[in-house]
């Protein structure tokens, strides 16, 4: 299987604290890779290092053979890597459709084209498809601030897919979402994976969600990678059990 992203020996230090300690893994094409670990194990810091939000102390990230360590998040996004955040991040004053158009507009044409070209940057069709796919059709013209938390979460995920990325990193997509919405979200992510061949990396606390969604899992504890494998194997790994349950 082709490797989409290689993460090599990422280390991040904040003063004397080592938040991420020499973590390496590959992301393979078409998989849903889960990153799990107890609170404070360095998952989000690792994400931020991979995505250029933080500069890693050492280590490299390669996207399809190209070194992308430390490049600006907007440039990385244009190379086909998109993300969602742990806390909900939509644009409340824009409508659902405009949120989606925004998520795609910077990937098309030049600054001049965006200034003098069509208002929707030719993305209304694509946005409507995405709205249909995430079952938000009845809300397309509502301001995002008028949506429920779960619907905003769906919109947040939809925005990450809008530009047709090669790789999507989701930071706790299930956090704070009720059961019905959770099923709907999992269902949509699965469909994205099987129908469109999208590759994912998912950070998640909800074990049930991870086990049902992911094809492979890496486990972090205290900043170190302690286990890697398919969900069934990882679940039985004594190191993982110890990390989660303590001694």
């Amino acid at each position: 299987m082709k490797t989409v992203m290689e993460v090599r020996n990422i280390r991040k230090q904040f003063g004397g604290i080592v938040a991420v300690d020499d973590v390496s893994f590959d992301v393979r094409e078409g998989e849903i890779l889960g990153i799990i670990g107890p609170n404070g194990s360095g998952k989000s810091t690792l994400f931020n290092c991979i995505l250029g939000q933080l500069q890693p102390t050492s280590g490299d990230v390669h996207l399809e053979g190209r070194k992308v360590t430390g490049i600006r998040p907007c440039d990385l996004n244009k190379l086909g890597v998109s993300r969602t955040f742990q806390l909900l991040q939509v644009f409340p004053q824009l409508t659902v459709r405009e949120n989606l158009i925004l998520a795609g507009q910077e990937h098309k044409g030049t600054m001049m084209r965006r200034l003098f070209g069509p208002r929707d940057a030719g993305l209304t069709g694509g946005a409507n498809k995405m709205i249909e796919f995430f079952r938000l059709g009845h809300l397309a013209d509502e301001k995002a601030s008028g949506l429920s938390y779960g619907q905003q979460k769906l919109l947040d995920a939809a925005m990450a897919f809008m530009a047709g990325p090669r790789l999507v990193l989701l930071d706790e997509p299930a956090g704070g979402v009720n059961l019905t919405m959770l099923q709907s979200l999992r269902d949509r992510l699965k469909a994205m994976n099987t129908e469109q061949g999208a590759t994912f990396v998912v950070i998640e606390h909800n074990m049930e969600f991870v086990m049902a969604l992911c094809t492979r899992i890496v486990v972090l504890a205290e900043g170190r990678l302690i286990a890697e494998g398919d969900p069934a194997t990882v679940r039985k790994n004594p190191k993982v059990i110890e990390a989660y349950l303590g001694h």
Partner: protein
Amino acid sequence: MRAFRKPAAILALLACLAFLLVAPQLFKPYGVFILSIWAVMTVAAIGLNLTLGYAGQVSLAQAAFVGVGAYITAWMTTHGWPFWTTYVLAFFVCFAVGWVLGYPALRVQHHYLAFVTLAFNTLLYLVFRNEEWLTNGIYGISNIPRPSVLGWSMNHPHNLYYFLLVHLVLISAATWLLIQSPWGRAFVAVRENPIRALSLGVDTRRYTLMAFAIGAGIGGLSGSLYAVLVQFIDPTPFALGATPTGSLSLLLMVVVGGSGYFFGPFLGAVVAVLLPEWLRFAQGYYLMAYAIFVIGLMVYCPTGLLGLLDRMFSGKKKPSTEIESPAKTAAEVAR
């Protein structure tokens, strides 16, 4: 209620435009002059609304750009250059200076950015006052000639008023197109959530600088028109406060009118330019009345006059039903 909003807004807009067109027939020359000042200050506030209202970057330096534009036109036209050259130059010089001023905005935000821009305004004020070889210092530049368009002399106050009105309409139309374009959406994204915008490929650095530069450029246009209108330029109007053209007053126009609302600056300029005139009978008390009004507005409606209108016309929202009903249908769909 919502269905009536758009036609009602268009009707109100047409009524205002009609009023502005017949206004010179209704007022004495002084009234026409005040309306002309209103048009010029609205242009400056439109520029600031772009920077502050849409892109969310606090700037207390707009008066400095109005000053730069005014001095460019004043100096050049009194040295024989045609108005139009100075007008275009005013835009581009202010655009460039605004771009440079945008760099601090990439590092500091909110109050800190206000301080940086405030310092910049003071700096330019000192340049206007002290560089006598260029600006003639506190004596200012007088006898600024007015242009004529297709044989129409702008020396007649009515002609001048319509000239300024046309500029106001054209500049607001251009700004409208700008904020309706994907750029406008990116500006709002930079205002609402720069980190998320960045992760969606929005080059927040470039858009922030653009918002500053274009806002400043429009400020420069306003200054150029101001010079033509008052025909005498000295440093005082381009300081921080105290005059209707000062930076604080421009900020007040944007905030009182409704920051981030397209027509906010128009209304804000009415409050800042016309209200003091109407309240003149109150003499020294007018500033108090004015201050109380503004404080009251900010307490009860921080989104400004247009925010207030918006709230009234959309009726008392019942947020619970509005949010829950779609949620229910989504849950049904999910099942």
